[in-house]
C-alpha cells in the first residue's frame, strides 16, 4: 500500500530543467531506504510555475517543492518521506508549503487544467477516475441537437484566438449536407512564447480526445485528425499513448458505448510553419498539399477537408467540452463575463516573476493576471506594457491594466485574446524594437501567397529596421499606419490581417518612443544599438584597461591603473565590446 504519492511535473519545461534526473535520484534514495513499496512517483503534466522547475507536489499533505535538484533527493526522502518533516528550504515560500496558500495557485481557477499536474497523463484509468469519458457516455444517449444546444447555451467561444461561438460552428457543420464529415483539432500552436496547448496535450490528452469525440457525435463525423506540430515530441508521444489506450477500451472505434456512433482519430504532424495554424492552410497540409490558405467563403463547415464539411476547433476549446456536458451549460456560463464565458489558459512570459502556465476566469483584470498571479515585474524595474495575443496581438500600456481579460475588451483596445500568450514588458524594453521583432517573425512566416501580406510585412519590416537604426523619418510613421491598414483589409488570411497589430498598437500607445527614435535619434530604453551611447560610470571604474583592449576603434580611452576611463562617442561604432568586457559593470548604455 502506498502512503505517499509524489507528483513530479514532467511537462516539457520541467523536463528541460532536469525532472528526469530528479526522478532517478528519488527512486535511488527510495530504494536505499526500502520505501519503494510505500512511496509512488507519478509523472504528471505541467503544474504551471515553469520558472521554478523542476517542481514536485507531495501528497497526502500537498507539500509543494520547487527547483529540486537531484542532490536534494536524499534529504527529501530521509526527512520528509521517512520522518514527516518537510524540507523547508525547497518550499516556494517559507511557511507556505501548500499550493492553495500561494497566490500564484489560489488566484487561479482550474477547469481545463484541472488534471494537468494531478494525474498521470499516460494512464487512462487516472483520467477515468476524474470522471473521464463519462461525458461521452452520456452524450451518445442524447440527440445531437441537444448536445449542440448545450454548447451554445454555455457560451463557449473558440480558444484559438478569434473567439467564434463554438456551438454555432458545430451547428453549421451539423446542418451541412454530406455523408462524410470530419473533426479536426488544431494543435499547431505557433505564437512565440505560447505553450498552453502543448501543456494540455502533455498533461491531459484524453480530455482533448473526449472533446473531439463529443463534437464528432454532435456534428455527425466519424473521423478526426489532430494536427500537431512535430516540435512537440512529448505531446505527440502522450497523444499516441492516449489514442492506443482509448481504442483498447473501446472509447474510440466502432460502436462507442454500444451506440451506433463510431469515431476514430489520427495524428498528423506539422512541420512548424506558422501559417498552418490558419484553418484552410492546416487542411491543405493534412491533404498533403503545401500549407497555404485559400479565400473564405466557402468555410470549412461546408467545404473543408477533402471538400467535405469539417469542424475545426482548437485544443483548449475541445478540452472545455466535457465540463459543459458534465457540469451543465449553466454552471459553465456562470463563470466569466457577459460575452466571454468560462476560463482561459495563459502562458505568462517575459519580465514577470512567476512565468508559467495559468488558468483564470474570463473577466479578471490584466493587473490581477500580471501582478497578483504573475507576481509583478522583478525587483528594480518598472512595468511598461503587456503584449497579449502573440504576433497577431497588441501591446497594452500600464494605463490599461484594469482592462478585463475578455475577447471584446481586449480587441477594443487593439490587442486580441489570441491563443493566450502574455508577454510582460518592463522599462528596459524598446517598444519599437519589440514591434520589429514580431514583424520579423511574421515576415519570415508569411507564406507568400497573397501580395498584401508578402510585400506588406517586408515593407513594414524595412521601415522598422530604418527607425531602429536611427534613419527613420516622420513620413515613415504615416507609411506604417497606411500599410498596416491595407494589410488588415486586403490580406487573404488572419496571418496578414493581424500581422500589423504589434506595430499599430505600439504606435497608438507609445508614439513618443517612435518619435524619439526618429527625431532625437535616441532609444529611450537604451536597447537599439545605433541609438545608444556607451559611458563609463566613474565610481565603478577600476582602471583595469579591459575596455580599452576590447575596443576596436580606440574609442575607449584611459591609462591602466588610473580610473576612470572614458569612451569617446565620436569614435564609437556601438559594437558593445567594452560593455561585454567590463568586469565591474562600469560601462553603461544610455539613450543618446
Amino acid at each position, binding site marked *: 500500500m502506498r502512503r505517499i504519492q509524489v507528483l513530479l511535473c514532467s511537462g516539457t519545461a520541467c523536463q528541460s530543467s532536469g525532472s528526469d534526473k530528479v526522478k532517478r535520484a528519488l527512486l535511488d534514495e527510495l530504494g536505499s531506504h526500502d520505501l519503494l513499496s510505500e512511496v509512488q512517483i507519478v509523472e504528471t503534466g505541467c503544474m504551471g510555475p515553469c520558472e521554478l522547475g523542476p517542481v514536485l507536489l507531495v501528497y497526502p499533505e500537498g507539500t509543494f517543492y520547487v527547483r529540486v535538484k537531484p542532490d536534494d533527493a536524499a534529504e527529501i526522502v530521509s526527512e520528509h518521506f521517512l520522518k514527516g518533516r518537510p524540507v523547508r528550504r525547497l518550499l516556494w515560500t517559507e511557511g507556505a508549503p501548500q499550493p492553495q496558500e500561494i497566490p500564484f495557485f489560489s488566484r487561479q481557477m482550474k477547469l481545463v487544467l484541472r488534471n494537468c499536474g494531478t494525474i498521470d497523463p499516460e494512464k487512462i484509468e487516472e483520467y477515468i477516475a476524474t470522471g473521464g469519458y463519462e461525458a461521452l457516455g452520456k452524450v451518445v444517449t442524447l440527440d445531437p441537437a441537444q448536445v449542440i444546444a448545450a454548447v451554445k447555451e454555455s457560451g463557449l467561444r473558440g480558444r484559438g484566438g478569434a473567439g467564434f461561438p463554438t456551438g454555432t460552428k458545430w451547428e453549421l457543420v451539423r446542418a451541412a449536407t454530406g455523408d462524410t464529415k470530419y473533426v479536426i483539432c488544431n494543435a499547431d500552436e505557433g505564437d512565440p512564447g505560447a505553450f498552453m496547448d502543448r501543456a494540455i496535450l502533455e498533461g491531459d490528452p484524453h480530455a482533448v480526445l473526449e472533446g473531439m469525440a463529443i463534437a464528432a457525435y454532435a456534428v455527425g463525423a466519424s473521423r478526426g485528425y489532430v494536427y500537431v506540430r512535430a516540435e512537440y515530441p512529448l505531446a505527440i508521444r502522450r497523444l499516441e499513448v492516449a489514442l492506443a489506450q482509448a481504442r483498447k477500451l473501446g472509447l474510440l472505434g466502432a460502436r462507442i*458505448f454500444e451506440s451506433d456512433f463510431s469515431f476514430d482519430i489520427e495524428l498528423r504532424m506539422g512541420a512548424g510553419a506558422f501559417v498552418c495554424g490558419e484553418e484552410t492552410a492546416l487542411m491543405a497540409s493534412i491533404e498533403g498539399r503545401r500549407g497555404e490558405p485559400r479565400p473564405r467563403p466557402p468555410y470549412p463547415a461546408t467545404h473543408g477537408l477533402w471538400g467535405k464539411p469539417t469542424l475545426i476547433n482548437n485544443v483548449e476549446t475541445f478540452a472545455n467540452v466535457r465540463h459543459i456536458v458534465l457540469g451543465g451549460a449553466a454552471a459553465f456560463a456562470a463563470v466569466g463575463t457577459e460575452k466571454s464565458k468560462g476560463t482561459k489558459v495563459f502562458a505568462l512570459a517575459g519580465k514577470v516573476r512567476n512565468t508559467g502556465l495559468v488558468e483564470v476566469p474570463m473577466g479578471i483584470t490584466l493587473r490581477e493576471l500580471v501582478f497578483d498571479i504573475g507576481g509583478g515585474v522583478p525587483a528594480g524595474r518598472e512595468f511598461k506594457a503587456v503584449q497579449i495575443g502573440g504576433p497577431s496581438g497588441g501591446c497594452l500600456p500600464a494605463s490599461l491594466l484594469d482592462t478585463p481579460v475578455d475577447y471584446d475588451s481586449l480587441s477594443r483596445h487593439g490587442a486580441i485574446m489570441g491563443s493566450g500568450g502574455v508577454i510582460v514588458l518592463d522599462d528596459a524594453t524598446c517598444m519599437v524594437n519589440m514591434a520589429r521583432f514580431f514583424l520579423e517573425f511574421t515576415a519570415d512566416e508569411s507564406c507568400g501567397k497573397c501580395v498584401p501580406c508578402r510585400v506588406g510585412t517586408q515593407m513594414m519590416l524595412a521601415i522598422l529596421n530604418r527607425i531602429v537604426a536611427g534613419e527613420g523619418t516622420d513620413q515613415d510613421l504615416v507609411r506604417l499606419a497606411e500599410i498596416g491598414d491595407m494589410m488588415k483589409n486586403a490580406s487573404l488570411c488572419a496571418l496578414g490581417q493581424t500581422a500589423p497589430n504589434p506595430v499599430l498598437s505600439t504606435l497608438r500607445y507609445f508614439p513618443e518612443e517612435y518619435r524619439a527614435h526618429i527625431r532625437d535619434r535616441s532609444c529611450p530604453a537604451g536597447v537599439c544599438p545605433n541609438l545608444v551611447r556607451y559611458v563609463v560610470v566613474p565610481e565603478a571604474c577600476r582602471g583595469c584597461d579591459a575596455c580599452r583592449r576590447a575596443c576596436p576603434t580606440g574609442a575607449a580611452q584611459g591609462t591602466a591603473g588610473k580610473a576612470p576611463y572614458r569612451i569617446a562617442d565620436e569614435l564609437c561604432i556601438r559594437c558593445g565590446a567594452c560593455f561585454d568586457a567590463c568586469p565591474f559593470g562600469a560601462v553603461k548604455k544610455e539613450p543618446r
Partner: protein
Amino acid sequence: MKLDELRKIRERAEAELRLRGGPSRVKIVVGMGTSGIAAGARQTLRAILDEVARRDLRDVVVTQTGEKGLAAQEPIVEVHEPTRITIYGEVDEAFARRIVTEHVVNGRPLSERVVEVREVRDDQPAH
C-alpha cells in the same frame, strides 16, 4: 464498453487518486520523528500499511508526521476521523494491527494506550 463498465474502472482508479486530496473517511498518522523511529515507528507504519492493504480499505489514508514531543510514549499513532482525533501511544506492530481492525474497521476505539481524544468541531477540520 458500457457506461457501467466505465464506472467500475473509475471506482478502482479512484483509490489510486485518493491520496491526492480525494475523500477519505479516516486518516492514520504515524509519528516518524527521530525518537519515533528509534522506538520502532517504521515497523508500526509497515504493519498499518500492511493491514490496510490486506483488507483493501479504500477510504483510509496513512501518512506520517514529525516529532510530537511525546518521546516517552513513542511510537505515536493518531487516528483522524471527521468528529475526533484519537491519539495512541507505545504502538507496537501488534497493537497497530488492532487499531486498524478494531478502531478503523469495526468503529470501536480502543481503550488502552490512549494518550488523548480530541473532539473536532465543524469549523476546525481534522486535517
